[in-house]
């Protein structure tokens, strides 16, 4: 966004049609349009993004270098510099703060990996099962999407009730099935981790389902027909056509799920109120609690910056690895669909969306 404004003076503007449609259809050069129009259209959006995201984020980075304690909060611009002191505190594994941060980091990684794997797995499973047509398909699909449509807090509150030791449904159900004695504390100790993952998967897997069903719909049916004629069974079809063709969808979906779960705040915040057990102490809530308990916002900011840096690095590596993988994983062999699909992909998607 910063780039946009800084290059405002050197605008070179052409209709997109020229680039997109080499065939010439709709590619005539437009005149009469003021050069600054696209920037004018973007300006309000950029302005608000600057105000709420970019400037506060830069301020957050700056704050991470300040000794920003309660005392300086109201006149934070005068807080003394801390140099890299806050980062040293965060990294110091011998100190209490550093150790707690490291543990929270480990918990968050485990939580994200488990949530993404389960949400994606269930979503993929459900999407494949919902393929084709059968009675009640539309209704079932709608029903399965409800947890994602509900406000997060409403869904988590229900789980909080269900996981309650004395009044909850989970313990009653497990006791009635003779699996446990029905006295388990689901929101304490190691169980709290499992509970948090289950709640987040319950809420997130419908999103994976929705996205993957949309992805499956954009795969042309004749590919499957050709594959059946060639004698490929369900699993082979899935392995050799469906999965490779869903690669662009999966690439974005998995990344988005990961970034969401890694920054999850709502689930532990509502599930545990103030007393978050160590096993469910995700980074966002860890930083939030340690900032507002110790009132040391410098260290809190330093932790947040580290979190952002980590996510940036992971995202960059992920995109590099998965983009290279996609070229190798292109369907090959006698069962492979004709190569034109990939080239045509964009226009077909566009047609599918228009239809």
């Amino acid at each position, binding site marked *: 966004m910063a780039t946009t404004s800084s*290059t405002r003076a050197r*605008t070179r503007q052409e209709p997109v049609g020229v680039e997109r449609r080499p065939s010439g259809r709709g590619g005539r050069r437009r005149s009469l349009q003021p050069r600054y129009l696209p920037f004018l259209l973007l300006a309000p959006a950029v302005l608000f993004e600057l*105000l709420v995201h970019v400037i506060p984020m830069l*301020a957050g980075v700056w704050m991470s270098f300040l000794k920003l304690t309660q005392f300086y909060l109201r006149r934070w611009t005068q807080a003394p510099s801390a140099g890299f002191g806050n980062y040293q505190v965060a990294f110091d594994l011998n100190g209490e703060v550093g150790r707690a941060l490291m543990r929270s980091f480990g918990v968050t990684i485990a939580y994200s990996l488990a949530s993404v794997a389960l949400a994606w797995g269930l979503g993929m499973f459900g999407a494949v*099962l919902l393929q084709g047509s059968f009675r009640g398909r539309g209704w079932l699909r709608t029903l399965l999407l409800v947890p994602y449509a509900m406000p997060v807090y409403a869904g988590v509150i229900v789980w909080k009730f269900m996981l309650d030791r004395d009044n909850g449904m989970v313990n009653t159900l497990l006791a009635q099935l003779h699996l446990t004695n029905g006295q388990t504390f689901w929101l304490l100790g190691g169980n709290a981790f499992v509970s948090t993952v289950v709640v987040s998967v319950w809420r997130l897997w419908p999103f994976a389902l929705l996205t993957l069903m949309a992805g499956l719909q954009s795969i042309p049916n004749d590919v499957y027909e050709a594959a059946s004629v060639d004698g490929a069974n369900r699993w082979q079809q899935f392995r050799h056509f469906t999965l490779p063709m869903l690669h662009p969808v999966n690439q974005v*979906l998995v990344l988005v799920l990961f970034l969401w779960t890694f920054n999850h*705040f709502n689930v532990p915040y509502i599930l545990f109120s103030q007393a978050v057990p160590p096993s469910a102490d995700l980074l966002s809530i860890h930083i939030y609690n340690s900032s507002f308990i110790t009132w040391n916002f410098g260290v809190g900011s330093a932790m947040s910056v580290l979190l952002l840096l980590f996510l940036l690095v992971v995202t960059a590596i992920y995109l590099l690895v998965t983009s290279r993988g996609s070229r190798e994983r292109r369907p090959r062999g006698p069962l492979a669909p004709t190569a034109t699909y990939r080239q045509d992909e964009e226009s077909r998607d566009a047609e599918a969306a228009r239809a």
Partner: protein
Amino acid sequence: MHESRAFKTLRIVGLTLLTLFTVLPLYVMVISGLKPLRDVQGKFTWWPTTLTFRPYVDIWTTIPLGRYFMNSLIVSLAATAASVFLAILASYAVSRYRFRGREPFRVTVLSTQMFPGILFLLPLYLIFVNIGRLTGFPLVGTRTGLIITYLTFSLPFAIWMLVGYLDTIPRDLDEAAHVDGATPLQTLFRVILPSAAPGIAAVSIYSFMTAWGETLFASVMTNAQSTTLAIGLRQYSTQVNVYWNQLMAASIVVSIPVVLGFLLLQRFLVQGLTSGAVK
């Protein structure tokens, strides 16, 4: 396509399990909202001793739920309207013009998804406090502050999805309007927007859901007057008592607007996803 017997069995078993996982919490919510208080204070039972609608009446008086509901409604509607309007302008620019910074803009827009909210929570709070002090126009503790914050949360994804949607609308339409002497803005609002209605519907419900469900910023930016549902519902648990039956009833009441909206418009959301986000 031929379906083997094994696949049909797998489908029935698999979908049954997925449905149970989804529906059990929904069942608990519905049935517990119809129980008298004593039924939710002992062991969980699958059916109430007496079915009652009392909780749906009591929720409005136990806490000022009506006020929280109005706050959430005003904040979410205003944030949605603003976010969609800004997204329409921005996505038209990105979709129809080539300009320096177009690609960086597209990438930056999506990368805001990865910003940890916790990183800009406190700076934003301090900035809002200072703006309030300088201009006398309070942003902290008011609905305006929340509206401004929330509109930017859905804006990136809204732009991303609308760009994808606008890209599918043939440019011949623009050309025709241009030949007829329409200005770019007239073209956008009279010609393009009607064709993009499904995309706009999808973006609207997405924005509304984002604002309606936000907790982190609401927990810091609101006061007693501007509390939204996300924060207000906590008051059903007091030191002595948790009104689980009312809490369940209230959870249903606050879910209904977004769930209905989402289920009605999900078809368009899927189109938006395929044409925009997933590309």
